[in-house]
């Protein structure tokens, strides 16, 4: 193992509480309760440790991070420590005064989610009545406050027919950047896969729409695009490699290589309450288990892409194959890839079942 570089970014999941109930939520099925959450002082110490070890960007996320009344305090603390601060929010708890306080605290950027381009679909998918209208209002307040805005648009079989409308909405709201991300199937999304999975034709149409929009809107808005990997030929470079660039702290302080890592139940994770962050990053069993390439077996081990995609996603290998050390079945070189494609084709061809909404205690 060569020398371990420090992480570039920290995803701080301040809480799992959220007024929305999106059926593809990236939080784990076992949601942490408010009583387990780190205190303000514990978060500040974790932010200090992150900055000291070389983290450059902090993403305040959740759940809904604005549900924590100390968000401004934490943004200010991170900002004063030299970190670039980003807020990832559903927006529905924000108002003009709170946004002004966040600006004053040093917030650099906001990512605001939308579930659809129109209220009916938006409120239904998010499971929150009136949410879409409130988000439109909040987007305008964010821009009026001078903050740069990214719209986070998670797309799937129940809103892909509105993709052009979603892009038009982002332009209308004066967004600087649009993140169009197909659902990734872990946790809640894995459970709701049949209700969300697009057909291959829907995926190809979406990709064509995004490609054309990028060309048409060059220099006006940046569009990032994340594809659904069940139909892929090669896996995504998940997190840029396990324990290479990124770490995540859960509301209760568990330190994870990605937000879905707790779905790999064969690993256990340390907490910032018990162990210094840098020590967890460098020396913990969980972070070293899939770091680099030494853990790989074939076909990854001899693959010339092993330091490009880093074996793909460990959570996906575990979810589909029950073996987190296997090649991600999203890779066409995996012996299980064809089975994965058949799952996607079967899910997307059948009538979509009802959503199982994300809520605490739903299991």
């Amino acid at each position, binding site marked *: 193992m060569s020398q371990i570089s*420090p992480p570039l970014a920290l995803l701080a999941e301040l809480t799992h509480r959220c007024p929305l109930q999106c059926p593809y939520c990236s939080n784990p099925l076992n949601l942490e309760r408010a009583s387990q959450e780190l205190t303000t002082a514990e978060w500040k110490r974790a932010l200090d440790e992150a900055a000291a070890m*070389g983290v450059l960007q902090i*993403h305040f996320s959740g759940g809904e991070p604005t549900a924590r009344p100390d968000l401004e305090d934490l943004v200010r603390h991170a900002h004063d420590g*030299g970190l670039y601060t980003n807020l990832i929010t559903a927006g529905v708890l924000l108002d003009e005064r709170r946004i002004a306080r966040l600006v004053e605290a040093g917030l650099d950027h906001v990512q605001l989610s939308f579930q659809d381009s129109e209220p009916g679909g938006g409120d239904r998918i998010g499971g929150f009545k009136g949410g879409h209208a409130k988000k439109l209002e909040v987007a305008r307040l964010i821009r009026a406050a001078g903050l*740069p805005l990214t719209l986070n648009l998670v797309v799937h079989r129940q809103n892909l027919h509105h993709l052009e409308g979603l892009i038009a909405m982002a332009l209308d709201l004066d967004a600087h950047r649009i993140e169009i991300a197909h659902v990734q199937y872990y946790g809640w999304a894995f459970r709701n896969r049949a209700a969300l999975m697009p057909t291959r034709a829907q995926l190809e149409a979406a990709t064509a729409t995004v490609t054309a929009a990028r060309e048409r809107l060059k220099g006006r808005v940046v569009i990032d695009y994340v594809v659904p990997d069940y139909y892929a030929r090669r896996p995504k470079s998940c997190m840029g490699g396990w324990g290479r660039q990124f770490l995540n702290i859960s509301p209760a302080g568990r330190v994870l290589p990605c937000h879905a890592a707790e779905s790999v139940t064969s690993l256990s994770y340390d907490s910032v309450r018990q162990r210094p962050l840098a020590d967890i990053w460098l020396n913990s069993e969980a972070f070293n288990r899939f770091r680099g390439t030494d853990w790989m077996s074939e076909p990854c081990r001899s693959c010339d892409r092993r330091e490009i995609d880093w074996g793909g996603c460990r959570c996906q290998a575990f979810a589909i194959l029950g073996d987190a050390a296997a090649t991600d079945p999203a890779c066409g070189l995996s012996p299980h890839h064809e089975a994965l494609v058949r799952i996607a084709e079967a899910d997307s061809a059948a009538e979509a079942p009802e959503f199982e909404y994300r809520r605490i205690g739903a299991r």
Partner: protein
Amino acid sequence: MSERALVGEASVPRLARGTRLQFDKHREQWIVQAPERLFVLDPIALEIVQRCDGVASVGAIVDGLAAKFDAPRDIILRDVNTMLQDFADKGVMSL
């Protein structure tokens, strides 16, 4: 939503809101931070970005660089235009 901004000698560039130029002391390099992105600046890019203060025009920036490096102005102009247009298209630079 405005049209695409094109770099010219009269343009007055500055880093866009939501981006930040800083020295990364852990990795000993100059970077521009942007939403979920990081641009590592080589010494030439740093010379250019440091002059993008919202006051100096591209023409003035190029004059300054040509004098400092004793290099042909037209080549510097071409390089500066290319870099600033790329940064503008990525939303990092305002013109």
